[in-house]
């Protein structure tokens, strides 16, 4: 009997864990597809949760463009970004990205974050405006190494 209960417990527990992992994978894929349609799907740990919430409730004017997104995709992406934000409990090294950010401030641009500015202080402004780069939001124009935390392109217009 004891063994049966234990077995059931393990099976149910594994089921929950797998279910969560599948949901996370789905949310990650949705984020990659939808955000990545216009720009690199930026790693969520680069902004605090309050920033992602604000961005995801203001998609009608998303840095000068309408990026309206229907439910449930919008809510799913918001939850994913918040769960992996710089100040989310499970985010390793998240504090590094929040250095110098006022706790009451809600930064909306990664390129306005102190860590980003410090890391790019030696890059001339004209580099970001060049035809190949076009925007400082185009990380992959320079960071082409892929893998290791460089973010992924994603998108549905490939």
């Amino acid at each position, binding site marked *: 009997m004891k063994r049966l209960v234990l077995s059931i417990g393990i099976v149910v527990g594994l089921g929950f864990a797998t279910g969560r992992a599948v949901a996370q994978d789905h949310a990650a894929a949705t984020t990659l597809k939808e955000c990545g349609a216009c*720009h690199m799907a930026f790693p969520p740990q680069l902004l605090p949760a309050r920033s992602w919430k604000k961005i995801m409730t203001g998609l009608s004017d998303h840095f*000068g*463009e309408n990026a*309206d997104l229907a439910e449930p995709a919008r809510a799913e992406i918001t939850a994913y970004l918040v769960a992996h934000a710089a100040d989310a409990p499970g985010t390793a090294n998240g504090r590094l990205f929040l250095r110098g950010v006022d706790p009451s401030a809600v930064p909306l641009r990664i390129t306005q974050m102190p860590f980003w500015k410090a890391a790019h202080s030696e890059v001339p402004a004209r580099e970001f405006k060049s035809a190949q780069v*076009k*925007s400082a939001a185009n990380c992959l*124009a320079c960071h082409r190494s892929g893998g290791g935390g460089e973010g992924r*392109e994603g998108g549905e*217009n490939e």
Partner: protein
Amino acid sequence: MRCCPVKRLHLLAALGAVLLASAGAARADPARDAILAQLAAEAKQADSGFSGFSAQRGGAFWHATHGGGKPDTPACITCHTRDPRAQGQTRAGKTIQPMAVSKTPDRFTDPAKVEKWFGRNCKTVLGRPCTAVEKGDVITYLSGQ
């Protein structure tokens, strides 16, 4: 009965024109046809005099500077470029695959995707939703490109 060679030539030319037209204007795809049929029904409902979509009108719309929307994006060609067969670029620098159906055959075959992108881009470029006629004209134009 003798048939005049000129007449036969005319017949051949007409047949050729029909073939060319069907190859150029209507790259048939059941999903795209269904989207166009739905838009045509909406257009008819808004205006009983609606008499079909026009690739020519769609082309003019594609190349026009509209304004009324966000200042950085006054036209379709701001991001998609003048040539629908060429790749475009988003304002964030990401490549957009060509909108021409000859280059990207699955364009306008997913109703949700069509609705999403016209929904966004019409507000961004024109500051208002596009009409069913505008959407159908543009799809018709790009289907022949």
